[in-house]
């Protein structure tokens, strides 16, 4: 097993439960922040793995570009909530694998919060966006799922509605409910459903229209930086 995976397991099985246990012992509304700290802990193994890999400039730039596009995706279309943000992140995951997908998502969320304001929800967002990249990366790795526009679109829609959206809503549960109760949480999840559906629909439409076109472009980049030799063909000539 890869060392990064081992680290991830340690975090998930030891560190996170420890934090949760600690939070029950602390006074006041520590769970506000403990939830953020848990999210942060989940980021660590992914970040560590990425740092260790020492990505080449070409890959680094591509990841930055995709993260920035994830930030921008919410501005591109002037309709409320109709934002294909997760589609961009998932495409990154599909093209470059789950680890890079996670990084694109996490950095996208962090970068976005530098423009729109950070808060205790920032680690949650980073994690949730990252998870979007990871899921897509795993699902489409080694031809597990065919990379067809409608399949990617549907997958992205389902992920958004079932996993990523609710994850984001969970941070709202922790940060806004005065008392965490099942009924209170359920109300929040239900009220978030419409937003998540719209997000998901935007992702579906976007991938249906442009999924393979963009994937092709990203794979071109991937195949290039994978080469041993210096990797440019473009010359402007």
């Amino acid at each position, binding site marked *: 097993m890869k060392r990064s995976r081992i680290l991830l397991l340690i975090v998930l099985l030891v560190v996170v439960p420890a934090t949760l246990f600690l939070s029950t012992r*602390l*006074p*006041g*509304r*520590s769970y*506000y*922040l403990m939830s953020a700290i848990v999210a942060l802990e989940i980021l660590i193994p992914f*970040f560590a793995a*990425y*740092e260790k890999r*020492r*990505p*080449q*400039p*070409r890959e*680094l*730039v*591509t*990841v*930055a*570009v995709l*993260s*920035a*596009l994830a*930030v*921008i*995706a919410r*501005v*591109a*279309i*002037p*309709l409320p909530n*109709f934002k*294909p943000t997760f589609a*961009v992140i998932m495409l990154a995951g599909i093209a470059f694998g789950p680890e890079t997908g996670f*990084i694109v998502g996490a*950095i*996208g969320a*962090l*970068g976005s919060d*530098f*423009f729109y*304001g*950070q*808060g*205790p929800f920032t680690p949650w967002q980073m994690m949730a966006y990252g998870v979007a990249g990871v899921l897509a990366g795993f699902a489409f790795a080694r031809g597990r799922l065919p990379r067809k526009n409608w399949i990617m679109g549907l997958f992205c829609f389902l992920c958004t509605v079932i996993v990523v959206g609710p994850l984001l809503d969970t941070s709202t549960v922790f940060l*806004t409910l*005065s008392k965490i109760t099942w009924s209170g949480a359920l109300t929040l999840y239900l009220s978030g459903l419409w937003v998540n559906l719209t997000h998901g629909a*935007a992702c579906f*439409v*976007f991938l249906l*229209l*442009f999924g393979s*076109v*963009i994937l092709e*472009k990203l794979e071109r*980049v991937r195949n290039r930086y994978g080469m041993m030799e*210096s990797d*440019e063909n*473009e010359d402007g000539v």
Partner: protein
Amino acid sequence: MKRAENDSFSRCHPAVGIVFFLGAILFGAMIMHPLYILASGICALVYYCLLNGVKGIKTVAVLLPLVIVIAAVNPLFNHEGEHVLFQIFGRPYTWEALIYGASLAGMLVTMLLWMGCYNAVMTSDKFITLFGKAIPTISLLLLMVLRLVPNLLRKIRQLAGARKCIGRGAGEKSTKRQQAVDGMNVLSALISWALEGGVVTADSMKARGYGTGERSRFQIFRMTARDIVLLVLLGTLAAAVIVAIARDGTTAEFAPVVTAAPIRGLHAAGFAAYCAFLILPVALHVKEAIQWHISRSRI
């Protein structure tokens, strides 16, 4: 942003900033004692206004009524408490629930204000200074994203404008469907454009030796003697607060009756330390303003 440059605390080393904000926010979440919340709230409010000027005051003017509304609404759903003020909708409206609501709302708003201050003070270069060593690649990625986003925003406006000038883009009068499809078209073109630009950026990084060896980091912030003094001061005060928390000096119960730990003796010291900790940025700001005032009046 401009005001933060004139703020003495903002010019401190980022380590001072992060210690302060971590303290303010962690303590803020852990302590339910109404007096502590009030102290934190006042400090946050003053500092927020100092940082954001008139705009800050406007924001605060919106937030304060919010506290009152949340406080007043809470007893409608929460009926715990012995002191019934009056009956409404056949349910008791209790003093305890009112105080609990007020504390809760005060806490939320205080957090919001501290986060607002954090966003103004802890700019991206400070973030990089703090985390650049632990996560150099991720930090660089973040910087690249921060550069790209405004560029992409400009480009998106350019793309949309160019399309409008040949009668293709979606205008305000277009249907939602048109707006959506055109937005998607623009976004896909933007991706091509940005990936293309990325080729050049990567070349430029390689041309300047990225990846040839261990990177060092240019430190734009220098740790001065004053920063160290401030760090020690913040550390000591935080330790005092932690002692107070550990000795149950900050506890409060809201049901069946409001009982808060009395602020007396050792607990009073803890409370004083808490106030001193939180007032620090404001104190630095005011001190500097007075100094300038004096040196100007001497001329």
